[in-house]
């Protein structure tokens, strides 16, 4: 839309404040999702094996958690089946001192990072809102209100930088979450502050029932990066090697002080949104089948076999390790958690207020009364029987 010089033209200086700003071209994502598997690229054998083991365990974890939900041992489980590559790569791309900011779907990333799975499942089991110490584990609580964890990650990364610490924050969000105002505000703050944050969007095609086409008209979600002045990266989210590569790259870039990045992982939610959801209402089985052909675990197995890094025995071994993990999880989750109603009042403030003390006393009295009642009734029943 440039106007050619014509007669009648005279020189006009550009608007004074105008200086052509940062070039946008390097910020634009690739035209196709980045991939490594199947490309014959040089890759670290140990890393591939490690990723494979984690993927197999991750898949098994998802299955086990879903089963426990059916048995009433979890209140709800949003499975990451089909998304294990992104989950696992997120965990492995971080160093010890880095922080992970997962959403409600990212139990697996926290587990792959080495957290106690029972503690990570606390929210979804329903014994408390979060079950581990974020400062000790450097994993923020699983976040349910969409995209709200993103500004937290920015604030934490910025704080670490202010203190001169070498810490990167990796924040995870879904395709649906990118529509929330908090997504926008977080990315903008991160870019302005050049905070060491990596934003990982798992585009799994749906926000519950709403497909991506109703969520955005953007060329890709990675294109959103340009509007904040950070690079956008588009990756095959089911290619664990590509995910690991791009995540590590972005994390180390942030660590070097070169600022935040946005990564879109193209993947698919193979299961329903949660156990409570009925996905047949809004999508075709054919679509799911097609994606099963692009399964992150299978892709990695095939790659390893191609590279002669895996044989049937290795597959069996990985499955057994996963089964062992699942058994342990099952056993521990089948025990009722220790609940203490006094917890309800102890962490609202640093110190109970007068009112909270009164309420704690009230509840204690109520519980004592109902226990007494039970004892009385049990006694009676005993007599009756």
């Amino acid at each position, binding site marked *: 839309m440039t106007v050619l010089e014509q007669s009648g033209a005279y020189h006009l200086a550009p608007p004074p404040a105008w200086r052509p700003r940062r070039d946008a071209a390097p910020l634009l994502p690739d035209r196709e999702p980045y991939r490594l598997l199947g490309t014959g690229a040089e890759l670290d054998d140990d890393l591939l094996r490690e990723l494979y083991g984690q993927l197999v365990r991750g898949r098994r974890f998802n299955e086990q958690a879903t089963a426990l939900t059916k048995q009433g041992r979890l209140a709800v489980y949003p499975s990451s089946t089909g998304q294990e590559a992104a989950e696992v790569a997120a965990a492995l791309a971080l160093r010890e001192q880095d922080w992970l900011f997962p959403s409600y779907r990212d139990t697996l990333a926290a587990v792959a990072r080495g957290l106690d799975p029972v503690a990570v499942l606390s929210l979804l089991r329903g014994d408390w809102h979060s079950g581990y110490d974020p400062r000790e584990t450097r994993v923020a609580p699983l976040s349910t209100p969409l995209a709200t964890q993103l500004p937290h990650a920015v604030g934490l990364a910025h704080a670490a930088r202010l203190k001169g610490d070498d810490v990167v924050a990796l924040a995870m969000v879904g395709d649906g979450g990118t529509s929330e105002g908090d997504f926008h505000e977080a990315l903008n703050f991160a870019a302005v502050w050049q905070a060491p944050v990596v934003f990982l969007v798992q585009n799994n095609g749906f926000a519950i*029932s709403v497909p991506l086409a109703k969520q955005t008209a953007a060329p890709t979600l990675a294109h959103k990066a340009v509007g904040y002045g950070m690079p956008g990266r588009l990756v095959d989210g089911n290619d664990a090697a590509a995910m690991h590569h791009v995540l590590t790259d972005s994390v180390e870039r942030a660590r070097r002080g070169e600022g935040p990045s946005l990564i879109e992982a193209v993947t698919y939610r193979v299961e329903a949104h949660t156990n409570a959801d009925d996905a047949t209402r809004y999508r075709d089985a054919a679509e799911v089948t097609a994606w099963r052909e692009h399964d992150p675990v299978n892709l990695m197995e095939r790659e390893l076999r191609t590279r002669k890094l895996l044989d049937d025995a290795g597959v069996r071994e990985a499955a057994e390790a996963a089964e062992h993990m699942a058994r342990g999880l099952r056993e521990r989750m089948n025990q009722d958690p220790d609940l203490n109603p006094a917890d309800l009042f102890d962490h609202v403030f640093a110190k109970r207020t007068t009112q909270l003390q009164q309420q704690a006393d009230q509840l204690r009295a109520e519980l004592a009364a109902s226990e007494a009642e039970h004892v009385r009734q049990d006694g009676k029943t005993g007599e009756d029987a």
Partner: protein
Amino acid sequence: MSTATGTSVGTGEAGAQPPRGTARKPATMAQALNRALRDALAEDADVHIFGEDVGALGGVFRVTDGLAAEFGEKRVTDTPLAEAGILGTAVGMAMYGLRPVVEMQFDAFAYPGFEQLISHISRMRNRTRGALPMPITVRVPYGGGIGGVEHHSDSSEAYYMATPGLHVVTPATVADAYGLLRHSIASDDPVIFLEPKRLYWGKDDWSADRPEAVPEVGRALVRRPGTSATLITYGPSLPVCLEAAEAAARDEGWDLEVVDLRSLVPFDEETVVASVRRTGRAVVVHESTGFAGPGAELAARVSERCFHHLEAPVLRVSGFDIPYPPPMLERHHLPDVDRVLDAVSRLQWESEWRSDRGEVR
């Protein structure tokens, strides 16, 4: 009518009788709400439903089930995932004369839209001296008792009540679910329509084809007449109060009156005050937190207006002043029959009823 808890609920003296010859059969509150939306869509082309997952899925509680199929995606629309965007575009649609009915998926997920709600939806009519009314209905599933994990069980009515310009409506029966939702959609004022999640699957006998008329928004109903004391309640706590009243009658000989507010704004001071002046004692019951919660206004107002008629302080039974607990602990938080009865027992029954007390002092 029987509610989720199996207690019988009458529409009270002000409830209209169902039309003669209409088949009444068990229906859930969710079904009645669905029917109300359907009938509103059918009757008024300006009614538009939109929000997260309200289309093909029919909403996570299935309240909009089948509506997109019947009325098309232009009338029943899945939006991008952004609550401020939903409420903000609703403002624009209302400015153009439509009648948006939007859904916040859960109570806590209405918070991102609070600026649009407080700064615009509640004020646009006033700002423009009546030129731009906001006939918007914001449906909000609220409250707990369903085993929801964090952020899925809030009772946020105090925020809405404290915002001038909003109506705050909440049904407790199947008939009211239908009737109040129709009234709300037809209203030219913005309505926060609070749907008690744990009553969604509660059943009453009800006629879907000829739903009985219910009193307008702003009218409280005496759901159980009584003489000893008044339980003032609404929404999810109505069944609890009715059950408590039955237990009190059976076990203690107290004859409790139960008033269902049906709307917190407008507040039916007349009905509530008349009841408490009659009984001389009152307990406000809700599951929201107590401190600065919805019951604060009710207790303060009743204490003031009924001062000379009160035999005992107005008590409040509510959730504790804590963030809503995780599923495994929520039963400790939620007011139950025992907690209501315990409060009733503290209404200083030793002092006797003196109808002339106001004059004596």
